């Protein structure tokens, strides 16, 4: 094949040199070809071919019988010496004048000599050079070379070709390559074919790749010189050489040698080719034509080295290589291309390419490394369009953690400095979002505090946040001084370089809690009445929601009965009011508003209601023992300097001679509540009360001290008792009743009448 190509190149070269429209020279049978196939020629017979020579100029030219205007030359590749001598000019005679705008014909005859020794059967080749020159000059003005070939045969029917070469056909093409084989009767008339047969020479690995189109009925060559054609198609299904032979059997001498069968045959040959370039190596995982980069960090420069291998059966050449991507922001640079190596990649050969890539977007990505093949520029038929480019896909996922915070400045609410009573802290939750698709690792969470250190702290020192999720850190503001504090919170992460460190300003201030005052006024009241004693406060109570204290007073004078909060600072909504009095006169007060609320601004915190008793003192202080105003942060949300605490004073009123009455008095454990009638006549009824379990004995003495009766009631329980004592038979006079018990005796005089 290569040999034929070189020959054609040599032949066609003059045509290019003299391609001006000076003239035309062509074969009548093959007007568009420079190869003139005379076809089969029976021994001793001859074949002629007419060539037309046209002068397209207005000059007169001449064709001499000598070179360069005419010559039947030896084919340098000819098998036999002097093959060219089988060709000769038969008409016209030289020199031939070729007038302006005129044409002439030249008949070249092939003669198949009968001498089989010097001129054996087979193909005879020659090179015919024809041209014209100026009359006065032998320099060739226009000329053309033809490659003449004719087959000397001893067969009555023989083909124009011994080999039908389909050449390289891309496999699995939907289009079939077709070649016509001409067969001519060269001996006599009326020769019938007796068989048409195709024989596959190459191993049949697939279904039929050669498709011969035989006549349905064996045709008849009706006359000598009649040429019939057979069409053969070739569609390779696999790579490699395919070959076959077609045989046409006929009986040349059916009358004289009816059993004699000759065959005209031709070999069919084709090559199924395929461009099969595959990845052979990559510095990342690959499968088929895809390189899997996996998860890569975006904006990071990656170098990809790959090697391809030619698994096809045709050499592979790259004429261009590029990286393409759709809807993907990438930065790429090809470092090494296949075509940098000028040598073709032959079958099983390898080639390398490499490039650098940087993915600027995050998420899944696909881009291509496209190698443009030269297959379209080569004589390979039916190469699919896909073969023009070999595409390798590079897929992966560009990942990157992307930190986002809800605020770059966190201002804590002003908090009160409750130390040393309470820790004064405020905290806030900072949400950190990972907007990226890679795990955000905050390797360091640093707070750069001014002095004092540890004013702002966090609950975490590092953090790992999965993609598309969030997490939080708790920032705690714990001032120990009353001032304005600032600090920087640094989140050092693996996020994109530009924001791998996020700086968040922290501002917090602490102020001393407000001072408040609390007081109870001076009151008077009459025993038996209910007095309402308000606890007075000032407007700063609005900063608190909890009040607690224990109030002390003389419980023999005041006894707690209830409270009123309507219209006071502690009116509804209220969460809890607990006011409990113990027997010692300590009144524990606990008033709590809902956490998110505060006391109302009202001069009265709460009104306490007491029942007034004639007690053991004319007056009593109502003392605050430890008043506290708190809130959800601290029980001491308000300062109460000592001078701001004014205890109350209560004085018993409307009781004359209070100094004579108000003294510590002990109620006896047993007492006579009533004794009637007195004076008594028949029976005396005694109502008595005992505080506790005791023995009880009733003894009655007469005026002279004589015991006249005694009743022992044994052990009695605590409670009220009614004793009835008959006195009817006793003489009149004065008597003394004495009640004996575990306590002091009780004496009571009675008069009997």
């Amino acid at each position, binding site marked *: 094949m290569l040999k034929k190509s070189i020959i054609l190149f040599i032949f066609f070269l003059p045509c290019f040199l003299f391609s001006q429209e000076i003239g035309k020279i062509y074969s009548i049978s093959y007007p568009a070809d420079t190869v003139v196939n005379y076809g089969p020629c029976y021994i001793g017979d001859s074949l002629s071919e007419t060539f037309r020579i046209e002068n397209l100029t207005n000059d007169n030219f001449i064709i001499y019988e000598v070179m360069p205007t005419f010559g039947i030359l030896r084919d340098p590749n000819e098998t036999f010496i002097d093959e060219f001598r089988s060709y000769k000019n038969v008409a016209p005679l030289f020199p031939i004048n070729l007038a302006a705008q005129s044409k002439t014909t030249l008949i070249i005859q092939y003669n198949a000599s009968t001498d089989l020794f010097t001129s054996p059967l087979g193909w005879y080749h020659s090179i015919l050079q024809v041209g014209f020159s100026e009359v006065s000059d032998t320099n060739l003005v226009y000329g053309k070379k033809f490659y003449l070939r004719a087959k000397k045969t001893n067969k009555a029917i023989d083909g124009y070709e011994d080999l039908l070469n389909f050449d390289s056909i891309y496999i699995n093409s939907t289009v079939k390559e077709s070649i016509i084989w001409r067969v001519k009767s060269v001996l006599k008339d009326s020769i019938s074919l007796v068989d048409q047969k195709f024989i596959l020479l190459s191993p049949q690995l697939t279904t039929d790749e050669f498709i011969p189109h035989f006549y349905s009925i064996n045709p008849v060559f009706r006359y000598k010189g009649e040429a019939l054609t057979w069409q053969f198609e070739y569609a390779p299904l696999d790579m490699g050489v395919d070959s076959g032979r077609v045989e046409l059997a006929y009986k040349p001498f059916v009358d004289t040698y009816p059993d004699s069968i000759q065959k005209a045959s031709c070999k069919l040959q084709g090559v199924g080719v395929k461009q099969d370039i595959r990845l052979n190596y990559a510095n990342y995982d690959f499968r088929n034509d895809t390189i899997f980069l996996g998860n890569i960090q975006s904006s990071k420069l990656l170098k990809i080295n790959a090697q391809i291998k030619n698994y096809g059966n045709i050499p592979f050449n790259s004429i261009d290589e590029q990286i393409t991507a759709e809807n993907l922001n990438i930065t790429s640079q090809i470092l090494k291309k296949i075509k940098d190596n000028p040598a073709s990649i032959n079958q099983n050969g390898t080639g390398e390419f490499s490039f650098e890539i940087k993915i600027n977007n995050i998420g899944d990505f696909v881009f291509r490394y496209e190698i443009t093949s030269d297959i379209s520029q080569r004589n390979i038929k039916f190469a699919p369009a896909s073969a023009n480019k070999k595409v390798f896909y590079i897929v992966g996922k560009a990942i990157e953690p992307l930190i986002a915070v809800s605020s770059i400045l966190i201002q804590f609410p002003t908090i009160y400095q409750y130390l040393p009573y309470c820790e004064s802290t405020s905290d806030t939750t900072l949400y950190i979002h990972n907007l990226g698709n890679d795990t955000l690792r905050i390797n360091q969470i640093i707070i750069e505090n001014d002095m004092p250190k540890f004013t702002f702290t966090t609950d975490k020192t590092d953090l790992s946040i999965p993609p598309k999720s969030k997490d939080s850190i708790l920032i705690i503001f714990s001032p120990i001084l009353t001032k304005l504090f600032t600090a920087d919170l640094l989140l050092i992460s693996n996020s994109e370089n530009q924001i791998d460190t996020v700086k968040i300003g922290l501002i917090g201030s602490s102020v001393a809690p407000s001072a408040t005052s609390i007081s109870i006024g001076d009151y008077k009241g009459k*025993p*038996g009445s209910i007095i309402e004693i308000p606890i007075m406060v000032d407007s700063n109570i609005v900063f608190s929601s909890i009040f607690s204290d224990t109030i002390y007073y*003389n*419980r*023999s*004078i005041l*006894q707690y009965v209830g409270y009123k909060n309507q219209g006071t600072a502690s009116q509804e909504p209220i969460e809890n009011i607990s006011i409990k009095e113990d*027997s*010692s*006169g300590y009144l524990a007060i606990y008033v709590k508003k809902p956490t998110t609320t505060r006391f109302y601004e009202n001069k009265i915190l709460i009104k306490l209601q007491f*029942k*007034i*008793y*004639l*007690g*053991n003192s004319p007056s009593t202080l109502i003392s605050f023992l430890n008043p506290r105003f708190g809130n959800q942060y601290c029980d001491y949300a308000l300062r109460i300097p000592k001078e701001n605490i004014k205890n109350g004073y209560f004085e018993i*009123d*409307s*009781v*004359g*001679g*209070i*100094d*004579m*009455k108000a*003294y*510590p*008095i*002990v*109620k*006896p454990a047993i*007492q*006579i*509540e009533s004794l009637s009638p007195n004076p008594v006549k028949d029976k005396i009824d005694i109502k008595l009360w005992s*505080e506790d379990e005791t023995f009880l004995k009733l003894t009655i003495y007469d005026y002279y001290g004589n015991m006249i009766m005694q009743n022992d009631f044994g052990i009695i329980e605590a409670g009220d008792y009614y004793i009835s004592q008959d006195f009817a038979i006793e003489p009149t006079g004065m008597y003394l009743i004495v009640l004996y018990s575990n306590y002091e005796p*009780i004496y*009571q005089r009675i008069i009997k009448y």
Partner: protein
Amino acid sequence: MIIFCSIELHSQGFEWEYSARLPYKIPRAFIGAGYSYSYNNNFGDFSFFENNVYSLNFKKGNGYVNQINISFQYWEKPIIAIFGNVLYRSLKTDFTQNMTYPRSNGADNWLATYQTNMHLSRDYIGISIGGKYRVLNSYFSVGAEITSLFLLSSSATATEEILSPDFEHYIDGSTRRDIKNMHLPDFKNFNVLPEIFIAYDFSIAKGIFIQSSLRMQIPLFNSTSSDKFYDLPLGIEITMFKNINILN
């Protein structure tokens, strides 16, 4: 004649003429002296202060009234007399009020009842004028008078005692005490009191008769300036009258 006689009325109705031949000019002017004793009901509502401490309000009391008076009576007509008195009146009044207080020693509570007794004494001088009308020409007459009193003095004593419970006593151990420093009701220095009476006159000698009367003071006017204090005495009065010759 009978009719005439029957219509010849004499002052006081006394027939002091022995006979027509011994005519006796019936006197018209009399002077006399008398004494009255009344049971006095008091009602009112006045505060009692001990050591300037309000203690209670007294509302009801009772006592008696002694009065002596010098009277002048002039019979304007046989059935109508007018009179005037100069008098000295002494009132003794006792008020009692119970007060019950809840007491406590801090652990136990009980009720203690105190009774306060106040004895008031007032002395007045005064004058009164009035008139009386003989009823049906009998010796009974009805009359009315207006008395103007000038307060001479007032005084009071008071005590308080513990009624119950038995174990209760004062700080000194007693169950009764005198109230020494108290605040008296602000009795008016001048008081006008209307009074009505039913009188019966009877003669004991010629020119001399005794008027006995049952009288009641009408409590129209308060006895104190600012408190509520009314006296309602109901009593009897005996006054002996003798004619005044120079005026007859």
